């Protein structure tokens, strides 16, 4: 029987190693590509959010546990982290900054042990609602215990403590970036490894069918509880890293809004794939930080974006990516490309028109009727003049109509390509 060991059993370690090494390389060289202070800070934020989103997906994607309160663990991790740093700088404690994330992780874990016991008693909607209550409780407490939470202004710290070790003081952003990158790598490997352990598989089983798990010898509550504790550990790491990065932690770190944010972006990234949450984290930072910088209408765009993703790509960005990759792998791109590029073009035209209109509307609403001219994509627009509306409206009309016309043929081509692939897969299986 050992002789007939099937091929598929040996995991394709080579491919996996390549992926992980390129991930490491990417982390290493990203600052060279985006070297300005602000992009470094963005990269750092993405890093922490990635850990947070991955840890959240341990619950949602792996365990089917929809938590509305995951920020509790990252937030409390952050608070403990920042208090630790303040203790270190006060001289009462001696821990290098690079290990503060570990402290945060342990703190997250501690609160995971504490709160998780209550929340994981139930699953499904009940779990979601308990976590909602829990996060609101902790958040409300943050105003009641200003000693620990610092009230509305939060607790701040200075990450440059003591003498630099090996010339690293963690003052410059780049040093913080690499600290985050290293922890991100460790955490990502750790969380991926988790999916390949007995507990990691069992939480999948619990997600699919909790009832049956009880009849193969496992206590579902324990499976959920342990997973939550581990997930809270990683959340705590991300919290402490963000404390180091921002040098401030405030009550919003433990809020329902923060918890909702991670849910949103994890989902947008794609909960069905391990790396989905990472894409979500990148998007999350881009959308909330950059977009709000670029336009006042960012919340409108954000809302529309969510709606579109949910309606047209419920598997998240990762699923779109994987489906396209699959089409590519099976060499069917030439089949869908002709209808695809036209559709993309139509969408782009539609979006362009919509963006121009929205921006002009905002200009009018914020600046009053005498709204000044504005620059958009390097072109000047005068929203006050009715004539200025012709272009965007035309763009929207043309884009919209061609979208409606082109969609069926794309949908058909896309559908055919995918059935082809399924056929091929089925044949290779049989």
């Amino acid at each position, binding site marked *: *029987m050992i002789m007939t060991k099937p091929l598929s*059993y040996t*995991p394709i370690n080579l491919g996996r190693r390549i992926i992980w090494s390129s991930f490491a390389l990417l982390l290493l060289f990203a600052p060279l590509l985006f070297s300005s202070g602000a992009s470094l800070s963005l990269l750092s934020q993405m890093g922490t959010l990635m850990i947070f989103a991955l840890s959240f997906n341990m619950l949602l994607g792996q365990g089917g546990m929809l938590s509305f309160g995951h920020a509790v663990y990252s937030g409390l991790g952050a608070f403990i982290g920042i208090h630790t740093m303040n203790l270190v700088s006060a001289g009462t404690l001696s821990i290098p900054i690079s290990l503060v994330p570990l402290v945060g992780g342990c703190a997250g874990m501690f609160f995971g042990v504490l709160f998780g016991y209550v929340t994981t008693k139930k699953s499904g909607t009940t779990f979601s609602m308990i976590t909602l209550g829990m996060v609101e409780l902790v958040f409300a407490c943050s105003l009641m215990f200003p000693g620990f939470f610092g009230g509305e202004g939060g607790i701040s710290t200075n990450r440059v403590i003591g003498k630099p070790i090996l010339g690293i003081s963690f003052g410059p952003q780049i040093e913080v970036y690499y600290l985050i990158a290293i922890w991100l790598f460790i955490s990502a490997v750790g969380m991926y490894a*988790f999916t*390949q352990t007995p507990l990691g598989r069992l939480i999948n089983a619990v997600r699919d069918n909790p009832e049956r798990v*009880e*009849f*193969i*010898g496992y206590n579902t509550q*324990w499976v959920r509880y342990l997973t939550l504790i581990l997930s809270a550990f990683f959340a705590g790491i991300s919290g402490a890293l963000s404390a180091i990065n921002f040098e401030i932690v405030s009550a919003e770190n433990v809020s329902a809004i923060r918890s909702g944010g991670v849910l949103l972006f994890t989902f947008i990234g794609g909960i069905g794939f391990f790396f989905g949450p990472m894409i979500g984290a990148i998007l999350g930072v881009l959308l909330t930080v950059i977009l709000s910088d670029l336009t006042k209408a960012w919340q409108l765009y954000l809302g529309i974006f969510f709606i579109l993703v949910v309606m047209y790509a419920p598997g998240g960005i990762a699923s779109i990516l994987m489906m396209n990759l699959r089409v590519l792998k099976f060499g069917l791109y030439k089949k869908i490309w002709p209808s695809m590029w036209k559709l993309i073009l139509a969408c782009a035209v539609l979006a362009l028109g919509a963006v121009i209109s929205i921006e002009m509307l905002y200009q009018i609403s914020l600046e009053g009727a005498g709204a000044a001219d504005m620059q958009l994509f390097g072109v000047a627009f005068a929203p006050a003049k009715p004539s200025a509306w012709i272009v965007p409206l035309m763009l929207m009309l043309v884009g919209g109509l061609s979208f409606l016309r082109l969609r069926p043929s794309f949908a058909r081509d896309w559908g055919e390509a995918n059935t082809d692939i399924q056929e091929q897969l089925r044949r290779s299986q049989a």
Partner: protein
Amino acid sequence: MTVFSLELKDVRKSFGQSEIIRGSNLQVPKGERFAIIGPNGAGKSTLFNLISGRFPISSGAILLNGEDISRLRPFEINRRGLSRSFQITNIFHRLSVYENLRCAVLWSLGYKYSFWQRLNGLKDAHERVEAVLEQIGLKNRREIGAGLLTYAEQRALEIGVTIAGGADVILLDEPTAGMSRSESDAAVELIRKVTVGKTLLMVEHDMSVVFGLADKIAVVVYGEVIACDTPINIRNNQKVKDAYLGGHAPVEVAA
């Protein structure tokens, strides 16, 4: 006094006002194949649910290998060596066939809630799963998501998940429901094969399966075991005929 594999002592169960199980007594010796038959709603599945810990019993006692298990939770009972299948297929739909079975063997191999061991490094689990795959005939469907299997394959997997942990008392609830003749014949063969040396308790409405497989038949009517005997005696039992069989007792036994 012999220790029975499974013993029910005056087990009672009420849901709200209605008493569904009204003092059932049953003794299943080690290594025997028992079939439970009875009219719809007699309480057969409920009996299984009580034994396997899905519901708590109202009174009485259930002994597994002489040990009282009547207050234990399902997973505790499972760890003591009793495993059951479900009337309505109850597997992990999004996991592959292989993973379904691997989940089912982990506890019995002592891996518990481990998150420090690599699944793929667990040789014994792999071998055990391979063996089960072979037995239930799903060897070349291993990587398919369980939800995509055909009905009969799912039923086979259901049985596979039930036996994979190596329990020595197996409870099967209508294992052949919804199968065609040839499929259910195959299922009978499968069950016969995988329960060698084990204690089997099985609910079935298909008399050819019952009479083909069982060493003994227990008849449950209105929450009571009204008869428990060899197939031949059961077939000729007037009470059973009235309550359950009607004119349907198969003529040829164990073809």
